[in-house]
């Protein structure tokens, strides 16, 4: 039977790091990336992200869905941003620039004039955007595949989250295979009553309503068993005070190194950005030259 748990250990260098160190690393790196629109800096992060990705030894089969999703999302955003709404968040890109393509048209009958202009800056901005987004998404894409779900509770508790909240994480993982099985059973039970999800009649309302026979039994059943689970936890002294986690995480020297490294990157970013005023949008001259040659 299909169960949606994808974790299997890959025994790679990446998985030897303490999960807390990796979360801290990922968040600090993301914060740093967001400061840059200069592709020269972004390529540095792009390189780090993809180093992590390749060190994780993920197979194409595992990540295919993720990449498809990321590529569709990025291309949609970049396309809309660059071509249709023709702007970015950076002043240098929105105002002025060097036109590479201009298209003027008049809508027949109505007489509206359409002016569409694409500048070299906007094209380069779009390219920078792709690099930046790939750096961020590929960094986070790796996490779920390389972190043992049984460590989540102790990880978040070790990062200062209250024990109760951290335990919700562990408990959620405990319920997933059970609920997935329940979902399959309900699906079969309704099919046995002639229910066919793909045969949709009627308007929007009835189309959406069509999932009710699936989600209501699964949800209500889960709520009823929740009452029992809460009793079972109370009976074993949950939430009576401080809590031990028998799964123990220990930082090693390389975890410290990773955290210090990411801390340094963030601090340097702040200096570069605010102190030196570097890292803003930058376009190489040769790129502009390309279009001059065409003309």
């Amino acid at each position: 039977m299909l169960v949606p748990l994808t974790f299997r250990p890959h025994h790679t260098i990446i998985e030897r790091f303490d999960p807390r160190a990796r979360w801290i690393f990922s968040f600090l790196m993301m914060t740093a990336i967001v400061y840059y629109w200069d592709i020269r800096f972004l390529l540095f992060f792009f390189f780090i992200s993809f180093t992590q990705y390749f060190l994780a030894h993920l197979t194409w089969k595992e990540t295919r869905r993720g990449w498809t999703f990321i590529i569709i999302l990025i291309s949609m955003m970049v396309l809309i941003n660059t071509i249709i709404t023709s702007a970015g968040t950076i002043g240098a890109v929105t105002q002025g620039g060097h036109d590479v393509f201009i298209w003027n048209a008049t809508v027949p009958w109505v007489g509206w004039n359409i002016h569409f202009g694409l500048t070299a800056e906007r094209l380069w901005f779009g390219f920078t955007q792709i690099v930046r987004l790939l750096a961020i998404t590929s960094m986070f894409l790796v996490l779920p595949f390389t972190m043992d779900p049984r460590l989540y509770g102790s990880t978040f508790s070790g990062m200062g989250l209250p024990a109760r909240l951290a335990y919700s994480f562990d408990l959620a993982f405990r319920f997933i295979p059970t609920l997935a099985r329940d979902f399959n059973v309900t699906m079969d039970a309704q099919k046995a009553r002639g229910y066919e999800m793909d045969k949709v009649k009627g308007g929007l309302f009835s189309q959406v309503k069509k999932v009710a026979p699936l989600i209501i039994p699964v949800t209500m059943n889960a709520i009823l068993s929740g009452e029992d689970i809460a009793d079972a936890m109370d009976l074993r002294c949950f939430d009576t005070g401080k809590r031990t986690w028998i799964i123990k995480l220990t930082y090693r020297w390389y975890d410290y190194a990773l955290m210090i490294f990411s801390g340094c990157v963030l601090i340097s970013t702040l200096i570069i950005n605010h102190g030196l005023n570097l890292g803003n949008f930058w376009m190489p001259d040769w790129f502009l030259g390309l279009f001059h040659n065409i003309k």
Partner: protein
Amino acid sequence: MKNPVPLVVRNLSFRYQRRSEYALRNVSFEVHPGRVILIAGSSGCGKTTLMRCINGLIPHTYHGEMEGVIKLFGKSTENMGMAELSCNVGTLLQDPERQIVSSYVQTEVAFALENQSLPREKILPRIDETLSRIGILHLRDRETFSLSGGEKQKVALAGILIARPRILLLDEPLASLDPVSAREALQLFRRLADEGFSVLIVEHRVDDVLAINPEEVLYMDRGHLLYCGDVRGLMKVVDYRSIKLPAEIVFKRARKDPIIQFKPILPRASRKQLLTFKNVNFRYGENTPQVLHDINLSVYPGDIIAILGPNGAGKTTLVKHTLGLLKPTSGQVLLGESDTQKCSVAQAAHIVGYVFQSPSQMLFADSVRQELSFGPRNLGMRPAEIVKNVEWAIKTVSLEEELETPPLALSFGQQKRISIAAVLAMRSRILMMDEPTAGQDYWNYTAFMDAILQMPGYEAVLFITHDIDLAIIYANRVLLVSDGRVIADGKPEKVLAEDDMLARSRVLPSSLLRLNQKYFHATGRYYRAETLAHRIYNDNN
């Protein structure tokens, strides 16, 4: 005060807030170490409330009005916190699935001690010690989801024993187990009692628990403690129709009572095949083990078939093939003339009505009427026809007055009937039920099975069960399934007669089977104990 009594309950009464009637009335008893105490009674007798009072869920989680005293080892529970209570009383809830809170066995067992904030170094050895004590150390690094029902229960038990309680409360511990696992579990409970625990077992399957010789029995009814004493005394006071007693007892007592009328309404047997399996083999995926091996069988009009076998033998997989929910890897399943490979599940539903084990897995509508119309509407029946079939189905399960009630607001037994009616309304020709009696107490399930099998409207009935007694009482044909094979197929008195065959499919002979075998020479077929009593005594007189 030396060796105080582990548990003393004095004049205990309890009423839940917002309810007018008392759930417990004036209950008093004592529990001594090293004993197994059976608490028997049908649903609604107050046994769950009694357990909640002892383990502290009342008053810590459930609120209401409580009178009387509970003392644990001489100390009143009134001012005890949950931590102190759980060191004295361990509670195993009915469904281990709803007790396990962790994805892994090791952390599941550690849970109580983690919550008490014991240092990690002290917890780890205690996990191993507890697991070894009940013989499941080998499960330590497994995921809880992948365990079998019996294993889950042992892991849940380990999670309780690790806090070193001296009193164990077990709430219907046999409900989710197949007979062999149930026997194992009972032997484990006996051993724990012999080691000095006080073990309280709440169970309506009295017959099964008697095998481990409980020292004492409490019999409860509507909140009152009607009997407290040894097993022999119980047999005299209790109504044999409300809890399941050994067949010999029923046999002796039933002969003076009026005979039970039971006559299934089915068409006369014929050789027209309703459903046929031809050399069916099945596996879930290329690299997974084969689940069904060479299944060949046909279902004919007039058949009432019990499918018996342990958990994991492939019973459900087999039954799912009849609807095309699963398709054979090789071989054919024919519904009448048509191959399930070529028809949709919805088309198959015209012929096979499949009632899943738990009604809560399928009930969703806002009223019983809508719930019952769902299937017929999916099958494309005309509105007038739907109305007619819904009326008929609800009448058949005698719940006409609930037509406008939301099914989710009904009691479990009523929901079970609604789930059957929802399938009946589709007017399928074969009725197929997975564990039809699961979750119901003895009185309810016999009444339920009697009613279902005396309903008109279908040509054959199949049901999956662990309970050999259901096969004896209701079936006219039994399939024994083991390791994905049908190892026997025939009349109950033939299939169930051979002990080694039963052993092969992990089916345990029951007291009813023994009784029937004893009188088989006189009866020529199997009956329920009550009917057998009339046959033997009244025919002889």
